[in-house]
């Protein structure tokens, strides 16, 4: 199988801190690899090595077949970088930022202008094109960040926490943009601390914690690690909670938990439990506001894998 990028055994230390202690990452061409972990897990360090900004202390990484240390120049020709550490310039306008990047990529000035215009209208920034970036809203800035990474039509794009700090609506906007990138055959490395984001976008997920990959697989595979499906129930009448809980316990043969007020959840062996629960609740005349069968979410996955949940360890080292 050919990988768009591949990292093996990357180690990076900063003084006495070990940011990466031997991680492997790989993404097929045209896929999104989600790198999921809390602050300080080493996500940004991994991206910076793959973007030729840092040299690994041990291990190797290749992008489009080129070694990130020996062939850094070639790697830089095929990558686009976006995120918390590769910023656009606040004092320049959207157009000026993108034209500058085009010029640095050896576009003729006219081509650089055309490309900037094309990207700005694609990302719905045409109206703000001639305003300094410092007047942009958070969402506009992220879109410009994304556009800046795309000027050179890269084969591989690194998105380092592209939605951190955005409100949910803006986040969905950025997600839509990211999905369109892979439709064009671009390979994306997405780092995130949002489990929901990795789940929504990534074809494969590597969960990293304290500089190690602690799990890797498709979102569904990761969810399966935690175990089977859960049945969630929210009765309309809170007074009938005890009755409803008894029915679920009976159907599932497992103890029922109440994760929140008016909510019940129970692990179930298969989806026949759903029909059984519907029939029994109906017979007992318990009204149902919500009844669903779900895989565990990625928060559950992280907890199972690390035993410590997604609490931040420390600020990202680099």
């Amino acid at each position: 199988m050919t990988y768009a990028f591949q990292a093996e055994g990357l180690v990076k230390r900063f003084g006495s801190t070990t940011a990466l202690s031997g991680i492997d990452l790989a993404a097929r061409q045209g896929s999104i690899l989600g790198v999921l972990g809390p602050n300080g897990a080493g996500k940004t360090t991994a991206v910076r090595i793959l973007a030729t900004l840092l040299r690994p202390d041990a291990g190797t990484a290749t992008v489009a077949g080129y070694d990130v240390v020996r062939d850094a120049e070639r790697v830089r020709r095929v990558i686009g970088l976006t995120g918390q550490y590769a910023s656009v310039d606040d004092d320049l306008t959207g157009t000026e930022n993108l034209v500058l990047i085009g010029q640095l990529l050896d576009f003729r000035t006219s081509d650089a202008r055309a490309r900037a215009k094309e990207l700005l209208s694609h990302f719905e920034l045409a109206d703000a094109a001639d305003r300094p970036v410092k007047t942009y809203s958070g969402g506009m800035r992220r879109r410009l960040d994304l556009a800046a990474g795309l000027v050179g039509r890269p084969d591989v794009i690194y998105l380092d926490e592209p939605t951190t700090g955005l409100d949910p609506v803006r986040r969905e906007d950025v997600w839509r943009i990211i999905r369109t990138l892979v439709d064009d055959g671009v390979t994306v490395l997405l780092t995130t601390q949002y489990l929901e984001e990795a789940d929504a976008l990534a074809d494969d997920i590597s969960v990293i914690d304290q500089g190690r990959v602690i799990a890797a697989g498709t979102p569904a595979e990761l969810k399966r690690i935690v175990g089977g499906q859960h049945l969630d129930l929210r009765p309309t009448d809170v007074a009938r909670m005890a009755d409803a809980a008894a029915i679920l316990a009976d159907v599932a043969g497992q103890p029922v938990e109440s994760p929140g007020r008016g909510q019940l959840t129970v692990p179930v062996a298969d989806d026949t439990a759903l029909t059984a629960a519907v029939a029994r609740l109906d017979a007992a005349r318990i009204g149902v506001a919500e009844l669903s069968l779900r895989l565990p979410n990625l928060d559950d996955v992280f907890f199972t894998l690390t035993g410590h949940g997604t609490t931040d360890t420390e600020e990202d080292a680099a």
Partner: protein
Amino acid sequence: MSTTLTAPNDITRARTPSTTRPFGLVRHSVALAKRSLIKTRRTPEQLLDVTLQPIMFVVLFVYLLGGAVAGSTHDYLQFMLPALLTMQVTFASVQTGINLNDDIKKGVFDRFRSMPIARSAPLIGSVLGDVIRYVISIVVLLGFGSLVGFRIETNPMSALAACLLVMLFAFCMSWIFVLLGMLVREPGAVQGIGFLALFPLTFGTNLLTPTDTLPGWLQAWVDVNPLTQVMAAARGLMVDGPVAGPVIHTLLWSVGLLAVFFPLAVRAYRRRT
């Protein structure tokens, strides 16, 4: 945004053939110098040190010290202004280091570093872009100077040569501050350390007073101080005094500073993570 996102193919895939064009370092540096100029234009408050400060120094020095040192403010103005011009332009070069440090902190340079351009291009671009600061500083100083009575006693060409020589020296010297900008954490520290180094260099000359009035140890310092040579060259080219010796010394110092600090600055930039 769904409507515009339905035809993304031409956005990411349709590669325009970007032929590798020659003189990459020059073109990239010029593009980055333009960026630096735009930033200067948008943040005019950063120009206070090259607009109001020269005027303040002229007023302070000429009217505070002129009578005591030279017996007349006009004579003192003729004596001091070429040296003050040297000092101002040298001061202006510190800002390059401050700006670069800020750029790195903000992450703007990480994008440049992830691009297929020479490592030195962003640094050269910033230093070149800041030449405008030298020009403004000189125009303000000469403009205000002539308003209060300064006269070029040589000729315009020679005065122009003085300005260019001072700018060349400041350009070469600014690589020290670029290096400093790479080595310290905060823009404020660049400023602090930069001026700590600049005060003995600029004031430890015959800027304000003739050297023979100084104690011996200070005379020794003044004699080896490169700024003394630059100031003497500027004085010679604008008013009167020896020219050839100071000019040659200034050129040698310029080349020397560039040869030492340019590679060091680029290396520090490469290593900064």
